[in-house]
């Protein structure tokens, strides 16, 4: 399967509702320094369950557009990712939002607990525990330079 479309609502530098996509087999995100490219990656990590410290913020509420400068555009932000299984054409819509400082998870519009959400992600091959498919800006060399013990721990988590 694959990611088809991403929808961001008041997430970081993205004001209001913006739809990104459709994503193809090889999609490149381009734009000048400071335009919001890494923020879009943060949106993808966020909807897959990433925690605040790996999203470059101290608190989840800082993800809301304008919050870091004291002018939040709303009391909530939301990201939805539409996942598509190309063989069957089935689609699943994963959504996560922050209201105040707590997260709310939905699958196809229905509110679910975080356990059900991560189990559904694991079913399509997304394990947020080992995150071997996300490489944040400036981190690529670290993958090769882990020490021997850290590497064993990485294999431990994968198996």
């Amino acid at each position, binding site marked *: 399967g694959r990611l088809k479309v991403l929808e961001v609502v008041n997430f970081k530098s*993205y004001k209001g509702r913006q*739809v990104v996509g*459709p994503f193809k087999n090889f999609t490149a995100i381009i734009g000048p320094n400071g335009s919001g490219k890494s923020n879009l990656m943060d949106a993808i990590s966020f909807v897959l369950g990433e925690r605040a410290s790996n999203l470059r913020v101290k608190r989840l509420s800082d993800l809301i557009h304008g919050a870091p400068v004291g*002018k939040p555009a709303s009391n909530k932000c939301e990201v939805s990712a539409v996942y598509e299984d190309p063989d069957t054409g089935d689609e699943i819509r994963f959504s996560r939002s922050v209201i105040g400082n707590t997260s709310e998870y939905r699958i196809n519009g229905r509110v679910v607990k975080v356990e059900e959400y991560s189990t559904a992600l694991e079913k399509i091959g997304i394990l947020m525990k080992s995150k071997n498919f996300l490489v944040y800006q400036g981190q690529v060399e670290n993958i090769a330079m882990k020490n021997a013990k850290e590497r064993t721990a990485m294999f431990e988590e994968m198996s």
Partner: protein
Amino acid sequence: RFERFMRCFEHVSNKIDEIYKSLARNQSAQAFLGPENAEEPYLEGISYNCVAPGKRFRPMDNLSGGEKTVAALALLFAIHSFQPAPFFVLDEIDAALDNTNISKVVGYICEQAKSNFQMIVISLKEEFFSHADALVGIYPDLEVTEGMVGSQVVTLDLSNVPDTHLMPSDGVV
């Protein structure tokens, strides 16, 4: 538990050399994962060593910035072959690569993207993003009310465009 660990470790260490050779486009390149304790690898560390094309075996911290990036991508793709996530998101992984290595990495990505995984990359270099099937262009847009700069998005579908250099070298949408 032990079986699962060994299955994972053996799969990745069998694959890593072949992936590194095809990423570096050079049969003299070598990569191997070695447990420090062969009987019970999960008790001790696992070392990772690469021999860059044309060079001799040496410690990993002797590699240059660009050589480390290629070694890291080989490990990333070898791990993926054991536990395939539906897509990758890579943020400016080409920062330390020269144009020769960029075209090797892009070549590898284009081959894989057709068959077994979806690639989403963030890049500033035309040599990299001009081979994509679709471009997502982000541009800053001044919000009049708040005096703040926000992000706007435009998407270009390139799957029908022949794979040539698309943009002037500043490549910004």
